[in-house]
């Protein structure tokens, strides 16, 4: 697997960068992967790296609390939380704002 910085491969804009800055510590806290989220590529598969279903639920609930949102059921799929890029898309679709 080629490891690249998430910030070099995720779609970048001030809003996305700010979302990502808040997202990475939550991945570190809840995804149970053995390397810092900041060292991951945007499309690296978090499940392959060790995130369990229960971890993904913990991460989902931490995101809801941190961004004061509630993900609709339509976004509650395994794919929605599979990678940094996927989670950023999910956050945007759920209306999360970085500020």
């Amino acid at each position, binding site marked *: 697997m080629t490891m690249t910085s998430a910030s070099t491969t995720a779609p970048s804009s001030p809003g996305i960068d700010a979302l990502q800055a808040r997202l990475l510590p939550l991945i570190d806290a809840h995804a149970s992967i053995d390397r810092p989220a900041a060292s991951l590529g945007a499309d690296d598969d978090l499940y392959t790296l060790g995130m369990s*279903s*229960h971890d993904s*639920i*913990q991460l989902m*609930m931490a995101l809801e*609390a941190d961004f004061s949102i509630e993900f609709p*059921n339509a976004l*509650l*799929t*395994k794919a929605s939380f599979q990678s940094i890029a996927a989670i950023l898309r999910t956050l945007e679709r759920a209306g999360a704002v970085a500020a």
Partner: protein
Amino acid sequence: MLTPPVPVIRMPDAAGALSAADPLVGIDIVAIRRIRSSLERFGDRFVDRLYTPGEAAYAMAAPACRAQRLAARFAAKEAVIKALGFGGQALCWRDIEVIRHDSGACAIALHGQAARRARERRVGAIAVSLSHDDDYAIAVVHATRRRPRPPSFSLLAS
């Protein structure tokens, strides 16, 4: 050394007919300390997001066993998802419910989107078995999927 494939033998049912359904099996194991951690971190929101009122009430009826009971039910929901092939699809965890009968036997009730998908996939009866000790909870789910009827001779002839 290559060995020949083991033939699949379909056993006739009591009436002597070959089974018209395929078995589906799912299993999941959950570390109870992880559910306890979720409860401490997210409180009632964790319960409300994942469990039906009935499941939550059963777990709360014995506070000392709350985490074990919720862990077993989480394992059951995951086992249903595996058995029925719901893994990649949007779903609400509360749409998969563990019902506990007075006898202590448990069953699965599907609601909403999960029930619709199960009907589309011709899923028949679903059976579940739960267990836990101090550290882990486990669930096994068995279901059957009815095979589509073979075309009739009249359809084949047309």
